[in-house]
């Protein structure tokens, strides 16, 4: 019976997905469940009280610091997403439409260069570039454009946005590039043949057909940036700390894992809600046009 099932089409399929499924279960589902349970418990120094309570959520709702941090996190993530996707689109467009087909893989290869070094090193490099005595400031002072170093580019939210936008650029370029590659070029000729200029052809054909890639890019950039705590820790200074830093602080420094877990759950719910809304609006917008 079992051997028969395992040799059937479905059985073989299940057999093949079961190792990654178990892996995902161990490393995704269990930690998630643990975090979820923790968020309803309380911790007193080293002892864990497992009676069900909503106190953690109550505290998050009552103390303004958490709301403010969450708001700032969402703002930073949205900004990073906007900057990244807006800058990635022209790159992907150029790559898809103006690079010779036999050179495209070389260009894609070059786009991955930032990943050749560790992320930490890249963050420190941005410090060198943006710092008080950094490349930008000394450069601008030397050419005489400014008299004293610019301070709004390091140890604040701007620095976090710049660094993250650079780090996530390839993740945004690739899905948009793939969507653009899939567009049948004769559609663009057909649009021009039917009387539309190059610009209107872009607006009526290229952009709507590239939207799935843009949606993908937005989600790929937006979701992980909410959870990032390394960049704000190193680049954000006092005013640039985000919700993820607070979660880390609760877990490690303040020994309050349940509150950290509740914060994580709240952040996760926010991201889920925003992502779903975005996808739904987009689907409706696309449907409204078709």
């Amino acid at each position: 019976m079992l051997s028969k099932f395992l040799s059937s089409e479905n059985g073989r399929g299940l057999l093949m997905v079961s190792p990654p499924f178990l892996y995902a279960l161990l490393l995704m589902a269990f930690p998630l469940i643990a975090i979820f349970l923790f968020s309803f418990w309380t911790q007193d120094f080293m002892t864990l009280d497992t009676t069900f309570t909503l106190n953690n959520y109550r505290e998050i709702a009552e103390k303004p610091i958490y709301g403010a941090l969450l708001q700032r996190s969402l703002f930073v993530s949205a900004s990073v997403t906007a900057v990244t996707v807006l800058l990635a689109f022209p790159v992907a467009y150029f790559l898809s439409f103006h690079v010779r087909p036999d050179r495209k893989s070389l260009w894609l290869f070059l786009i991955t260069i930032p990943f050749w070094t560790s992320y930490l090193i890249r963050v420190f490099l941005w410090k060198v570039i943006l710092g008080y005595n950094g490349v930008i400031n000394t450069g601008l002072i030397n050419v005489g454009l400014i008299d004293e170093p610019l301070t709004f580019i390091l140890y604040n939210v701007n620095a976090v946005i710049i660094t993250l936008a650079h780090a996530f650029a390839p993740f945004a370029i690739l899905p948009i590039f793939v969507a653009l590659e899939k567009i049948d070029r004769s559609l663009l000729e057909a649009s021009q043949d039917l009387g539309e200029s190059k610009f209107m052809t872009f607006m009526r054909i290229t952009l709507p057909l590239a939207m799935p890639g843009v949606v993908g890019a937005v989600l790929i950039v937006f979701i992980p940036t909410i959870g990032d705590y390394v960049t704000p820790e190193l680049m954000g200074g006092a005013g640039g700390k985000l919700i993820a830093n607070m979660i880390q602080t609760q877990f490690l420094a303040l020994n309050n894992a349940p509150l950290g877990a509740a914060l994580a759950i709240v952040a996760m719910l926010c991201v889920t809600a925003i992502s779903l809304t975005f996808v739904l609006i987009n689907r409706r917008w696309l449907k409204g046009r078709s």
Partner: protein
Amino acid sequence: MTALITLTGVNKYYADYHALRDINLTINTGEFFSLLGPSGCGKTTLLRTIAGFESVSDGVVMIGGKDMADVPANLRPTNMVFQSYAIFPHLTVAENVAFGLRKSEDLDKPTKAKMVEEALTMVGLAGYGNRAAHALSGGQRQRVALARALILKPKVLLLDEPLSALDKKMREQMQVELIRLQRQVGITFILVTHDQEEALVMSDRIAVMFEGEIGQLADPETLYRRPNSRRVASFIGKMNFLDAEVKAVVEEIDVTVQGLGRLKISAEQAPEEVSVGPAVAGIRPETLGILFEGETTDRKLVDGVVDEVVYYGDMTYYDVRVDGVAQPLNIAMKNLIGRPVLDVGAKTRVIWDERSLVLLK
């Protein structure tokens, strides 16, 4: 008949590849014109030159008396049906058809909707407006592409191998429909095709292209009956080629044809510049015949042996060896009542007539 499109000395180079060689061509208003040729002969390039998707390296393209040199594709009075149909996948059928109407600001919405429905009715897709474009079959896509182009009432409709993606039945049906549509709307159609039968069926005139130049430009009947060269003759239909030698050119042409002997043909069966010397004679398979038992003929006969038999149902194609002819003669016979299908090796007699001979360059 007024000239609508005039191409004068058009050349097109891609790097060192000469895609169009000195094309001179006039296409008239209301004409169904075909560009016919094997793949890579430049017929699609020529069509795209008229549409404005390719610039000319040299020469002048005029449409309606206007030089098109600086007119981009979107401002030309031409519309195109693409080989892939290029139906916009994110739009419905009606939105596809209405695509080019955006700029017609003098039309209000209900008028546009009415025009779309009329265009869809014209191509036999009434009521399909709300369908998603990706849910259409190949034949339906083609009709949408036609409606989308015709709704703009262009001076010229360009068709780039529009039927090549359809199956045989559908293709034959669409051929007839396209002819009907062209008569109905009176727009000049320019069809690009590699299918000689399609070109013969549909066109008023055909330009046969080889390697970037026009080999012959004529109406279908002339093209079939009086091809001007061996390559045109072998591209259009089937043709037997026989070595020949022109002995004298007076009012008639005195010629010896291998296997058939010495005979006289009229001047219109030969190219104008015919002269004494070696030549090639062509004869179509269906103008030859096999004398079956019990049948009689007053035409000329030559002995032969059946070399190959291909049975098509309504027709049988024979290859018959005739003494003195290098290649077996290809003969097409209708399978009339009482006619047997001969076996390979059967001795037979071939009916021929010098009136169906053509001398080729």
